[in-house]
């Protein structure tokens, strides 16, 4: 090859490089419409239960260009419905699942077989599947402990306590119970009510009638609302302690029915769950455990500037 040819080839190579760079950059800088499809499966009998969490999920979904399909399954319908929904979502090509489910051996086994290529993020409560996942939740044990500490602070001597745990297959409930018991001790507790699924209002009312107590503690939003529904007209001012942040629960804090409320920041939990899913879908699949904060609220501090921002959702 002559020197002249070499020179011409060098120039052409340079131009080709520039052309390739320009083409590649131009094509790759075009708007990418890579949308992830994520399914959220939440367990609850109460349709309002997850409203704040959903706001957080939707806010993050918009930011991370993710399409979200939220499914709520009733604890009453059991594992079958839950598995059917998961199968349907997988069949529809979901990229990841955000789950809050009860620990059921059948469910866990089925999930181990089904979720081979699907990214998992668990929120609030976790189940022991063999596949790696991220976990976003408040420190449930500490929540229970702080609730217990506030109860002890206000409790008069000799008064009895009844604890409504709810679904004992949700480890969040059990962790909160352990934290609560660690704070108040076994001796003050008259009874602990728990079951394999969410407790109904009738079961709780029956227990309260059967064995009346001075203080009632609910360890999740559903049972706290049920306790409030049962006891709101019984003059139980400051005698209920609970967990949750629905408008109803906050109303009763404002009314003084709830002596103390522990409210997890569900907005952030929802937001972080999508954020974590986005990271996992982008191949950062390490098993993260993220703790979200919670507030300890009572009638006195409910309208504090910082607390009201988190406790009262803006009207959409």
């Amino acid at each position, binding site marked *: 090859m002559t*020197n*002249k040819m*070499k*020179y*011409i080839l*060098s*120039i*052409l190579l340079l*131009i*080709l490089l*520039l*052309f390739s*760079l*320009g*083409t*590649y*950059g*131009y094509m790759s*800088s*075009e708007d990418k419409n890579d949308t992830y499809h994520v399914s959220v499966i939440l367990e609850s009998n109460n349709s309002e239960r997850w409203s704040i969490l959903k*706001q*957080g999920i939707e*806010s993050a979904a*918009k930011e991370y260009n993710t399409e979200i399909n939220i499914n709520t399954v009733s604890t009453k319908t059991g594992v079958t419905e839950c598995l059917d929904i998961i199968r349907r979502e997988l069949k529809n090509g979901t990229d990841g699942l955000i789950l809050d489910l009860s620990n059921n051996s059948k469910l866990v086994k089925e999930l181990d077989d089904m979720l081979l290529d699907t990214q998992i993020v668990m929120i609030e409560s976790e189940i022991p599947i063999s596949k790696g996942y991220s976990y976003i939740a408040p420190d449930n044990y500490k929540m229970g402990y702080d609730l217990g500490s506030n109860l002890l602070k206000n409790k008069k001597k000799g008064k009895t306590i009844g604890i409504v745990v709810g679904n004992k297959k949700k480890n969040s409930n059990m962790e909160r119970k352990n934290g609560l018991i660690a704070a108040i001790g076994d001796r003050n507790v008259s009874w602990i009510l728990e079951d394999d699924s969410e407790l109904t209002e009738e079961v709780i009312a029956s227990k309260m009638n059967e064995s009346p107590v001075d203080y009632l503690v609910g360890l999740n939003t559903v049972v706290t609302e049920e306790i409030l529904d049962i006891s709101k007209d019984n003059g139980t001012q400051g005698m209920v302690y609970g967990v949750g942040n629905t*408008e*109803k629960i*906050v*109303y009763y804090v*404002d009314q003084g029915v709830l002596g103390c409320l522990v409210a997890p*920041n569900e*907005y*952030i939990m929802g*937001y*972080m769950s999508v954020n974590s899913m986005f990271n996992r879908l982008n191949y950062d699949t390490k098993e993260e455990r993220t703790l979200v*904060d919670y507030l300890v609220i009572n009638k006195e501090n409910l*309208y504090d*500037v*910082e607390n*009201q*921002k*988190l406790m*009262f959702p*803006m*009207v*959409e």
Partner: protein
Amino acid sequence: MIRKIKKTCKGLRRALNYRSIQFTISASFTLVTLVSMLFMGIVLYSKFVSKTEETTIKATEQLLNQTNVNLETYLRNMMRISDSMYYSVIKDKDISRDSLDTEMNLLYEVNKDNLVSIACFKDDGKLVAATPVATLKKNIDVTSQEWFVSANEQMENLHFSTPHVQNLFDDTSYRYYWVASLSRMVELTSKGNNIRGVLLVDMNFSGIEQLFKKSNASGELEYIYLVDSKGDIIYHPKQKLIDSQVVEENNRKAVIYEDGSHSEYFGGEKRIVTVKTVAYTGWKIIYVTPYSTFNMSLNQTRYFVILLISIMMLIMVLVNQFVSAQIAKPIKRLDKSVKGLENGNLDVVIYEGGGSDEIEHLGKSLNLVVVQLRKLMEKIVIEQEEKRKSELDALQSQINPHFLYNTLDSIVWMIEGERYSEAVCMVTDLASLFRISLSKGKNIISLKDEIIHAKNYMNIQKIRYKDKFEIHYEIEEEIYDYQTVKLIIQPLLENAIYYGVEAMYDEGEIILRAYKKEDNIYLEIIDNGLGMTQDSVESLLTDNTRKRTKGSGVGLKNVNSRIQLRYGEDYGLKIESQPDEGTKVTIHLPAILYSDMRGEQKHD
């Protein structure tokens, strides 16, 4: 790898040293094109970037102004409600006997899309009137609430609070309202006496929220938010994330900025912050445009410019190649024809068509030079040929006197010895010999004539030497038609007699052999005489100083020179000899038919 790069660089340097006119033109044009295109691209891109920034800032300011106008309209509306309530209702009523409810309800109904409630309190916090009808919370102390305190502190002014959850009325539907409170000190008339009170108009915060959501609807990286005069956030699209400290905002610093655009670094990124102060409230609307927004929108443009430049470069390089080839083509053709001239080819046609006038003129001039040169060369060749002919003639002229002298000498001897018949034969042979020698002045004769000439000669010599030797002819007849330089065999036969067989005691033998082999004619004169040493053989054709002592004086060198002058260095004589064995002289000639050379005889 490094070695490869070095090698490539070296190759490029060598390429740049390449000095053809097309290459020089093409390389210069290409370099200028590349530099110009790059420079132009960079300048245009920079201009585009600054123009885009300018446009974006202008668009930002427009959006900001629009949002500000909407917000101020909204606030003015609220103030108008407050003014109407105060000046048209409260001032005209005595609260001890008149109810404010009707007018208050009316005002609320008209503006209920933007209002949560209108309420009037006495200065001790007691409710005078409120709409929509609601129950004040038990044990609520309104006097400690911010809006009430502000109204009491500055009585003349209207006060806008930061958004907060309304904490006044009991709502059993569990509903809470985020409101921005507009409060003012009012004078109430009760039983004819003036007492102080506070008028509260709670604006639904969702009105402000919707207004800002609309401004943030683009969904891009830039966003707009609202802070109060202390820098506390009133509205932010990521309000909850900021409250939960998941994300941060530079609101404390932004509130210090004057109205206009400012550049800042926050959260590891550069951004433009445009600020606008809202009238009546001291609130500030802040528009944040991260520089990455520019980058994202300019990315495509940047790569498009690179793409465009590379295509333009390619086109320019190709055009350069074409133009330089067009310019260089006539020069290259001229150069090529001159190169032919350099190689000694005077028949080459010098290019003189096409190209610029200068090239055409140059070509014509060179062509003239070549024509002149060719004429000169032809003249020199003719002169050389003439010189060579004259030399040949001179050589041939050496033969005649020697031979004639010897032969005549022999004839004299014969006549004196009364050997008349032999003398007659000799004279006859001599006549034939001279006829052939003359050959009408031709230098080239047929081999037949040459052999007849040699035979004549040998006949004469045999008479002179009284059969002291034998001569044998072994001649292929096919050679007769071929040509030869004349009088080349006779001198060799003469040498064979004088140096070969004359001094022998026994009878000598001479063989004249002639044959054709391929395209060559070989004539061999072989004697069995005294022979000679190898040194003598080698000096025969090379030594110019050597003097002949016998014979006609026409030596082997003479014959050899004549053959080579005529036919070239490849032909001539070859001598083989052994002392006491004899000598063999081979004449090597090209096989050229005599008939083919007739035209040339004229020149000879």
